């Protein structure tokens, strides 16, 4: 699992340590992947900066999208059980 945002590596490291997360954090401060995946939320960050809109993707080992969630409300996020159900469904369980 990897979390991606525009935050630089040191900010993500602080977040991970404070929240005791164990998964990977990737920095996309230049919005390279965020733009490539059309996940830009223009001018939504501090001082009008572009940031990523919330989105979750489940990919197989070949990079094929098995499931995705593009919320229409940035306060409403996917539940962990939703991802687990999607993974189970992808594995035929």
């Amino acid at each position, binding site marked *: 699992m990897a979390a991606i945002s525009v935050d630089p590596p040191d900010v993500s490291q602080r977040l991970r340590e404070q929240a005791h997360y164990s998964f990977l954090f990737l*920095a996309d401060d230049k919005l390279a992947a965020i733009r490539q995946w059309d996940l830009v939320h223009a001018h939504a960050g501090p001082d009008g900066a572009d940031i990523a809109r919330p989105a979750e993707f489940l990919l197989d080992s070949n990079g094929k*999208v098995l499931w995705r969630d593009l919320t229409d409300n940035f306060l409403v996020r996917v539940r962990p059980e939703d991802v687990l159900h999607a993974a189970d469904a992808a594995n035929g369980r």
Partner: protein
Amino acid sequence: MKRSWNWRLWGGFALALVGIASYPFFFIRFPATRDFPWANLILFALAGFLLITGLRRAFQRPEAYRGKVSGTILASLSTLLVGFFLYTILYMARQVPESRGAPTVGQVAPDFTLADENGRPVTLSTLLRSPFATNDWPAATGDARGKTAGAVLIFYRGYW
């Protein structure tokens, strides 16, 4: 006749403030109250009841209750603050781009290379081959050599 303190006005205003502050500091922790602020709406309804009944007392029985001026100010301020809260939560939070160009189910997602928190480059294709990509993922990759895996990618707004 001594006029009584109109506690309903101040109680309503305080409850409106509690209703606003409780969302980011408490109710947002629970999906049931975060996804739709129904608990806060209940608090606002109670606040509104207190303010309206307090204003009625002040205007209909001014000889017994204070609060014509202060009550009007508190009620107006409460309305503005609650209105701003509802505008933010129910409207602004939904102003999220459609992202029509985002990878769809069945599509192969574009590869990318990004830096992890130690500044090391990580490509999506390498990440997909590691089933235990954690903070020390290079070590995990070695253990997972030859195994097929996948990945969950979480894009979030950042600016923590």
